[in-house]
């Protein structure tokens, strides 16, 4: 697809972790954490990534920022009007590119150095990239702190003096320090209490508007992902099974796994309905996935072809921007969440 708006294009990204055994550490197999995913992100949008634990969503995020080196694939990123393959960059060039591509982590307790003051934590990226004098850096840190709703009087404090929500704000300020255009948010609100979670979600969306940011938002909580995302990608055992706009995904899912996820979420409404049988079994072992479609072992609509041939991710005919990897996508009539919220709280 030729689209001037595309800021990130991932092509057949793979990350295999070798399983080594014996005295000579012979490679006896691979955990295929990310097994050939392709997608693109347009400038200014939020793309959500959902899936259960072990589906490869975090690994994919880390490979894109190159915190982790992928096994193969391409990550094209727009820099100054040009698409550059991040994976082909040298260490030095990648360091420069990181000014524009940053990451926010899940656990605000382990992602901040306990021995550094807030000022040092937020100024660290500026230090590394040698930007500004001490004086200018301090001004910048104060500015960033006010952007994320922290006071300048907290400058000299240590991480343990802050609550979980405030620590996540510090992590966000650090990610913003270099004026990035793209941020990978890896479960940024999962560790927070419900009331604080909403504050951070709102902050992220305000910052997006203010600084024209693009987010890749990784989370396991479907309600949160739906709330923040323009488009959503659903992953299962290292692969993308469905990708489309939020609305379309939630009202008109085309992959049986997406349907199962939507029917499984406990909705905060006692009058909501849940008459769907939950999926049976477990997510398969990514070092030894089943042949054919990886979901076939749990799929209620399975047919012979699903057990033999892995389905390709393809755009559905007549449905713009709706990609799905299922042999039976056209014929199945799947249920969205509207089937569950026939009676809504506002009525």
């Amino acid at each position, binding site marked *: 697809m030729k689209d001037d708006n595309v800021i990130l294009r991932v092509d057949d990204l793979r990350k295999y972790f070798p399983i080594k055994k014996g005295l000579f550490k012979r490679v006896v197999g691979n955990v295929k954490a990310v097994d050939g995913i392709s997608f693109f992100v347009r400038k200014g949008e939020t793309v959500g990534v959902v899936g259960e634990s072990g589906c490869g969503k975090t690994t994919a995020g880390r490979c894109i920022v190159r915190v982790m080196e992928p096994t193969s694939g391409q990550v094209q990123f727009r820099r100054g009007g040009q698409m550059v393959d991040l994976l082909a960059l040298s260490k030095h060039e990648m360091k420069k590119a990181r000014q524009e591509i940053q990451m926010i982590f899940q656990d605000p307790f382990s992602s901040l150095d306990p021995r550094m003051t807030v000022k040092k934590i937020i100024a660290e990226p500026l230090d590394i990239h040698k930007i500004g004098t001490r004086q200018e850096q301090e001004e910048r840190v104060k500015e960033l702190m006010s952007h994320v709703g922290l006071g300048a009087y907290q400058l000299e404090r240590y991480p343990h003096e802050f609550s979980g929500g405030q620590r996540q704000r510090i992590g966000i300020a650090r990610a913003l320090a270099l004026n990035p255009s793209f941020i990978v948010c890896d479960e940024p609100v999962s560790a927070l209490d419900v009331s604080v979670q909403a504050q951070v979600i709102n902050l992220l969306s305000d910052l997006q508007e203010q600084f024209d940011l693009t987010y890749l938002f990784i989370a*396991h909580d479907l*309600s*949160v992902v739906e709330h923040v995302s323009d488009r959503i990608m659903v992953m299962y055992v290292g692969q993308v099974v469905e990708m489309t706009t939020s609305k379309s995904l939630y009202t008109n899912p085309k992959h049986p796994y997406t349907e199962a996820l939507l029917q*499984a979420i406990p*909705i905060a409404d006692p*009058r909501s309905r849940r008459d769907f049988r939950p999926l049976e079994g*477990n997510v398969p072992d990514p070092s030894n996935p089943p042949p054919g479609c990886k979901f076939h072992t749990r799929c209620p609509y399975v047919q012979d072809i699903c057990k033999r041939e892995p389905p390709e991710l393809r755009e559905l005919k007549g449905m713009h921007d709706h990609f799905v990897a299922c042999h039976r996508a056209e014929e199945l009539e799947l249920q969205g969440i509207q089937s569950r919220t026939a009676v809504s*709280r506002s009525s």
Partner: protein
Amino acid sequence: MVERDKLLDVQGLKTYFETDRGVVKAVDDISYHVKEGETVGIVGESGCGKSVTALSIMNLVQGPRGRVAGGKIMYTTKGGERVEITALPPYSPKMRAIRGSEISMIFQEPMTALNPVYTIGEQIAETVCLHQKVSKKKGRERAIEMLELVGIAAPSRRINEYPHQLSGGMRQRAMIGMALSCDPRFLIADEPTTALDVTIEAQILDLMLHLQEKLGMAMQFITHDLGVISTMAKRVVVMYTGHVVEKASVDDIFYDPRHPYTKGLLASVPTLGRQERLVPIKGTVPNMNELPKGCYFSPRCQEAMDICHQEEPPSYQLEGDHIVKCWLWEQEGVRLP
């Protein structure tokens, strides 16, 4: 209501912990009850005292630093006797008989709650042998029966496996099987699905609803997840910083909440299919060592009045069985002692 209908009756319970920075009132004067066969949900954020309440019921509050400082917990046994749990020594024979065969508990993290060096079967059989005084062989049979009940395939093979050989969902099933092995009449579930993926969570919630229907036990379901509460509970107790701030039927809590904290919680959760901006509660949960004056929620409350910053509000009874601890209801509500 007749006292006898109440399987569990918590009256003005206070559970305090001595710390280096003073006394932490983890649970401070809370009252609620659970009737036979019903599910009461306890909802609140971290530090609200929901898990300490559970430990108090099990009489497992760790001394000498932790203690029940006031109030009492009454429990009605199979034989119809009303026992004051809080008056029993934690390791007395009577308490041991109640714990396990009358009241049972399941935890959030089955990997830490199960013993890694014993097989699943041994652990379930141990519980059964201990409480029902049966032979090892009988205990083993019961273990197989329980695994089958909680939907584990090939139970006679599975009982010989260790916890690490099972997946997270399986472990939680095994723990439920163990908790139910002595036919308890009351089950406390403390965040039993928080560590699980959403499709596995749905399996476990379904299983628990199904087992409750089949076995007729009462449940106290503790969670921070409003979605889980609305699926499981008939009545809901909302806790904040050691207090019960609101108690009502699940329908009233979600459709007619009266406490500003409950309203705030509901507005904070994203609802599927609606992308409008969330309305968070401002600020954060206060530190239990530095609680604010007056109502503990007042610094975060949108509707706080002068009195809220001065004096702790009493609880008011509103129409139905709706109880709220908030000064806003001084006019309409009936003040409870």
